[in-house]
């Protein structure tokens, strides 16, 4: 039986104070595959990401399971711990801490989940090496180029070896060459830890990139 990284059915959500009910298509995303989530502003992309990350709970109907778990059924504390273990997140704005160097920025993900053990340094150094930014380990985020900073943020998302990697507009404001490099890093990074990759985007280049890839199952969903 194929493991479903994401499985949703009749999922709806209404923001407090809003009369509009957001309805999402049913999803059945196999583990290790790629899901491209497209949609215009206000279509509900961010809401779906929040539901998948357990930041919002399913309360207006439908069902959602991520890696076999129903996040909404967990207590807030359990949900925080589950999110730290299961979800990797690459935001559009990277939010690297200017107070810490690259190495500690990546290690922050391990600390947040309480997984900062003896092997933390090895884990962090390995993921930085894998993404080709090991030599930047001692730099502060403001000393990095945009592409380097994005790789560091990706390293932070991958260091916990998440089951599901959520990327929000990862190629926004990048030129073609930089976008291709970013997508390759994202694809290889997610592949290296066996994570399912969900990209929220309206950038056609991403679709084109993944259409050329043959190794992974790619689904496209429009909201």
């Amino acid at each position, binding site marked *: 039986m194929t493991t479903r990284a994401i499985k949703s059915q009749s999922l709806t959500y209404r923001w407090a104070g809003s009369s509009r009910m957001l309805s999402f298509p049913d999803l059945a995303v196999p583990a290790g595959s790629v899901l491209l989530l497209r949609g215009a502003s206000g279509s509900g992309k*961010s809401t779906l990401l*929040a539901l998948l990350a357990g*930041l919002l709970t399913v309360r207006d109907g439908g069902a959602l399971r991520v890696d076999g778990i129903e996040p909404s059924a967990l207590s807030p504390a359990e949900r*925080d711990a589950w999110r730290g273990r299961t979800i990797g997140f690459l935001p*559009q704005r990277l939010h690297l*801490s200017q*107070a810490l160097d690259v190495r*500690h920025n990546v290690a922050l993900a391990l600390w*947040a989940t309480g997984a900062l053990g003896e092997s933390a*340094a090895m884990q962090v150094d390995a993921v930085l090496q894998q993404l080709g930014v090991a030599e930047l380990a001692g730099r502060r985020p403001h000393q990095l180029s945009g592409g380097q900073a994005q790789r560091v943020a990706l390293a932070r998302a991958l260091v916990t070896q998440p089951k599901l990697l959520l990327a929000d507009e990862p190629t926004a404001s990048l030129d073609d060459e930089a976008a291709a490099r970013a997508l390759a890093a994202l694809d290889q990074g997610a592949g290296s830890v066996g994570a399912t990759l969900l990209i929220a985007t309206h950038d056609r280049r991403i679709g084109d990139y993944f259409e050329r890839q043959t190794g992974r199952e790619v689904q496209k969903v429009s909201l």
Partner: protein
Amino acid sequence: MSITPIRINLLTLAWAQLWSRPLATVLNWVLLALGVTALSLVILIDSQVEQALQRDVQGIDLVVGAKGSPLQLILAGVYHLDVPTGNIPLSAVAQLRAHPLVETVIPLSLGDSLSGFRIVGTEPAYLDHYGLKPVEGRLWTAPLEAVLGADVADATGLRPGQRFVGSHGLGGGGDEHAEAPYTVVGVLPRSATVLDRLVLTGLESVWAVHEAAHGGASLDAEDRAALADALAEDREVTLLLLRYRTPLAAVTLPRAINSGTAWQAASPAVEMSRLGRLIGVGAELMQGFGAALLLVAGLSVFVGLWHAVRERLPDLAMLRMLGARPRQVALLVLCEALWLALLGLALGLLLAQGLTAGLGHWLALQRSVVVSGWIWPTELIVVPAGTLLVALGAAALPARSAYRLDVTTLLQAPR
């Protein structure tokens, strides 16, 4: 190749966050330190002055001297900080010793000094009163033998066997009584009492010095004895330190002396409490000033942290996205305030202790009350407690805001 370990905890993370805004951090640090300094300084000095004053006055129920200001009499007779109001006849000693309400009478004769330290003619009972015995040498047994207080011995370098000449007047710089030099016979241990800064000798020494000054030094022994006899009736002392036989004496004796004699009786307890009220207003004002500084610092910490949390909301939300619990994020903000409080305390207490030590040194040079730095009176505990309370209070709202932050804002498109 060895791998550098990674250590992250709330304290290291808060420390790093704090110093990512160095200007605001230094400003808040200095403000907190100033508040801590002001408050600590007042407490350190106030507590020590009060203790010193209490030590010097213990067991002295009444001071009797010439008419004048009662506070001046106490300051001159007990603390040796002011000039005496005048002299009273030696016969007062015998009269008061015979009084049924009086247990002890210690006479003091003032008038001369050595390098600014007062020479006090008295009886060995004065040392017994403070429980002191010479740590070097012995007590005086003859006129013109002197025992030095610890500060006097340190400042002048005089040791038993050496001689010195007193100067007329209490402040130093007066005419020297070269015709009647003293011999040091003993040195007292340090006692943190007024005796540390006195030169003690017998009452006869003071009379001998002044009789020598009246030409006695040039007379032969027989004539000198005749002169002493002639002057005996007019001999005076400066003041008397009394201890009551019964507490009831406090009700009747001062009034009896003040209304029935040409002398004045002043109660140290009454006068010092009057002085305490006067000084106390100043001390309270200073304490209030320190507390106000600390509160302003707290306000500045609040504004600083509030802005920092506002600025860093997305970063804090990212922490939550990474799996941190709301409590962890709120504690991070509280830890920043805790660091500020600890930094402010360290610098403020260091400054206050240093300033107190400096002031103590200056007061020692002025032959005044003993105050020293690098001590921890119990009352000082209010400073760290207050500072932590102010800093954590200032961080409470920003921490609450961090606790309740909306993580979904991370997912909204940047504007």
